[in-house]
């Protein structure tokens, strides 16, 4: 049971952390909860579908369908998170100042919410599909042990969601002055980490060269399957043995989003200066 709990925890953690951060980052947007919930539901039903069609997806493109699918899901999530962060840099100030009166921001806020739905849905889809497959395997194989194992699975889900909620609650305590910088930075690192994972899947499918593999090895100091390693993996995309190409992806996404945020922020403050 304990082993099951750990495995499910590992799968749930990544999605839970993402939802915690994104939920905090969008707290001032009206109607955010409904979108969040819709994203969660869409993700869960998608996860069931992906799990059911694993063999079909896997056999596409002569056996690298799963890598392509994962890379695509991650790639879209990176774009959405980038869009969110750049949008927040230009509207965040208005929203935090006075959400009700910022008419434009709220109209844009609806578009922002659909982004939120997609990001949450994709995270749940990817991690959820693996959890569904794992639990299905248990339920199918040994009948007697199945119920205790499923109990372990439930424990894992609760623990994972607990960490996500802790991050959300912790972020809400950050003073408003630093709040948008803090969530912006976290979303930025999430996106970069996902870009690095995208590269890893494309290398695994032999569509990209690894450049140097591994570029470094910190698995002795901070193994990826330890609790801190797992948390850092989900938060900032920590990888104990990354390929060079992963670092190229990580740095490219990190720098381009950061620069776009700076530009959006400057443009916005200039406009406000004129008005």
């Amino acid at each position, binding site marked *: 049971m304990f082993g099951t709990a750990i*495995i499910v925890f590992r799968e749930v953690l990544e999605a839970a952390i993402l939802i915690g951060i994104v939920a905090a980052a969008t707290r001032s947007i009206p109607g955010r909860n409904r979108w969040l919930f819709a994203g969660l539901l869409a993700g869960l039903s998608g996860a069931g579908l992906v799990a059911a069609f694993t063999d079909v997806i*896997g056999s596409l493109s002569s*056996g*690298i369908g*799963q*890598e392509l699918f994962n890379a695509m899901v991650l790639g879209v999530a990176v774009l959405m998170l980038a869009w969110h962060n750049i949008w927040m840099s230009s509207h965040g100030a208005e929203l935090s100042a006075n959400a009700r009166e910022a008419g434009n921001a709220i109209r844009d806020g609806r578009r922002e919410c659909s982004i939120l739905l997609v990001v949450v849905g994709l995270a749940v889809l990817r991690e959820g599909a693996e959890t569904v*497959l794992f639990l299905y*395997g248990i339920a199918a194989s040994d009948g007697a042990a199945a119920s205790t194992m499923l109990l372990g699975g439930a424990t894992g889900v609760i623990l994972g969601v607990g960490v996500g909620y802790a991050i959300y609650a912790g972020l809400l305590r950050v003073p408003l002055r630093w709040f948008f910088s803090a969530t912006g930075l976290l979303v930025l690192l999430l996106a970069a980490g996902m870009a690095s994972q995208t590269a890893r899947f494309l290398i695994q499918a032999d569509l990209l060269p690894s450049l140097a*593999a591994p570029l470094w090895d910190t*698995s002795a100091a901070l193994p990826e399957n330890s609790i801190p390693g797992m948390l850092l993996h989900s938060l900032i995309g920590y990888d104990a043995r990354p390929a060079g190409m992963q670092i190229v992806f990580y740095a490219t996404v990190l720098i381009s989003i950061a620069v776009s945020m700076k530009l959006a922020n400057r443009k916005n403050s200039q406009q406000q200066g004129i008005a």
Partner: protein
Amino acid sequence: MKYLRSALTGKCCLAGVGLSLLIPLGTLAADADYTLVIRDHRFQPAELTVPAEKKIKLTIENRDVTPEEFESHALNREKVIAGKSTATIFIGPLEPGRYPFVGEFNEKTALGVIVAQ
């Protein structure tokens, strides 16, 4: 040198020389192909020796009805393999060494190691 010396000691070892010359030629041409089979939540073979410094095409055949996830932190790879299906993973080029892997869905029995030399 080892092959040369042994070749001088007997006829049967001449075949060995021939093979040792042929293998590098054959494997230089394309990626090296290797196969792992999953049966009863175990990998066969549990220890797979592959050449170092070379890209490997690893085919994993899951003969169980339940899905499995091939996972290796050492190789930085993970892939779900549906029940009764086959998956392909590219690994390497690897430094000489031992690279353990597990079937994450059955971690107690599905254990193995890839040895690059």
